[in-house]
C-alpha cells in the first residue's frame, strides 16, 4: 500500500467520526458477519429540511479492518444533508472521499460500507429501525457469547 494512503487511513482511524450506535435511528443496515471479522453496521437518522427528508446523522460500528473504519468514518460525514436517493447514488469510490482511489484489494472494504448504507436505505427510504433486539447477533456477541458446552469447573473441586 502506498504511504500516502496509509497515512490518510491512519489519520482517519486516529479520530474516527460517527462511531457507535445511534439511539432512535430511523434505519439500520448490516453487512457481513462478525464471525469472519468483516462486519459493518450503519444507523441513519433523518430530518426534514426545506420539505425534503435528508440524512441528519449516520453512525457506524465496524470490526477490525482499518480501511473499512476509515471509509465508514468519511462516508458517514459525506452523506449528511443528503436524501436517501442522493446517498444511494454515490459510487464506492466517492464514499471513500479524500482517501482517494483505493488499491484493488481494498475496494472490498469500501464496498462493505456501500453495502451497509444500501442495507439501511433500501428498499424503502426509512424502514423503522429495529431497536437492536437483544437476540440479534451483534459485534459484542463475539466477545462474550456463552460458550456452548463449556462447563466451568473450579480447580479446587478437581483436587
Amino acid at each position: 500500500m502506498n504511504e500516502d494512503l496509509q497515512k490518510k487511513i491512519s489519520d482517519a482511524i486516529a479520530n474516527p467520526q460517527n462511531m457507535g450506535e445511534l439511539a432512535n435511528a430511523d434505519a439500520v443496515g448490516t453487512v457481513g458477519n462478525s464471525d469472519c471479522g468483516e462486519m459493518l453496521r450503519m444507523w441513519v437518522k433523518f430530518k426534514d429540511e426545506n420539505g425534503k427528508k435528508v440524512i441528519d446523522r449516520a453512525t457506524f460500528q465496524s470490526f477490525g479492518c482499518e480501511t473499512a473504519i476509515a471509509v465508514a468514518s468519511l462516508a458517514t460525514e459525506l452523506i449528511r444533508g443528503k436524501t436517501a436517493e442522493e446517498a444511494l447514488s454515490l459510487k464506492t469510490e466517492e464514499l471513500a472521499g479524500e482517501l482517494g482511489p483505493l488499491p484493488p484489494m481494498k475496494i472490498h472494504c469500501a464496498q462493505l460500507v456501500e453495502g451497509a448504507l444500501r442495507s439501511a436505505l433500501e428498499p424503502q427510504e426509512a424502514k423503522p429501525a429495529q431497536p437492536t433486539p437483544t437476540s440479534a447477533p451483534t459485534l459484542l456477541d463475539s466477545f462474550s457469547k456463552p460458550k456452548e458446552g463449556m462447563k466451568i469447573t473450579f480447580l479446587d473441586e478437581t483436587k
Partner: protein
Amino acid sequence: MRDVLELYPGAQRALFRRYHIGGCSNCGFSPDETLAQVCQRNGNLDINEVLGHIQSSHEQDAKIFISPKDLAAAVQQDKSIRLVDVRSREEYEAVHIDGSTLLSQDAMRQIMGDGSNTRPLVVIDHQGKQGLDAAAYFMGHGLQNVRCLRGGIDAWAQEVDTKMRRYKLGS
C-alpha cells in the same frame, strides 16, 4: 505462516487491521504458505514493510498488557479506571473482580458514548488470550487508554486475590 503466527501470536490481527488479510475465507491464508507468498498474491506487498508492521504490532501488543499487581495498584489510585470483563456471563457470575463490568450492549454503549476517549479501560478475560482482540476493538474505535490484564482473571487469582477461585473451561 504457521511459524509466523507461532512467533507473533498477534500477527493475524496486525495483518487484518492494516492489509485486510486473514479476516475470513476470502482474504485468508493457509498455514503452509510463506509470508512472501501471501504478500505476493495480495497486491505484491513489500515483505519487509509487512514484517516490520507485524513486529511493531507485536511490541505494541506487549505494551497493552498490564500485570495483575500493577492493575491492583492502579485501581487503588485511580478510581476512574473502567474494568471491562469480556468473558461469558456464566464465567462472570462464577468469579469477577470487584468493580468490573460484564461487557454487554448497554455497557458498550456507555463506553462508546460517554464522551471521553481517554478514560482508562482495562479488558479482563479468562487467561489473557482473547482480551487483546477486545482491546484492539476498543482501540480501533478511537479509545486511547486501553490495556489488557496480563494472564486474565486467572493470573489475578494467583497473584493478587488468592482467595478468588480459579476455574477451567471444558465439557
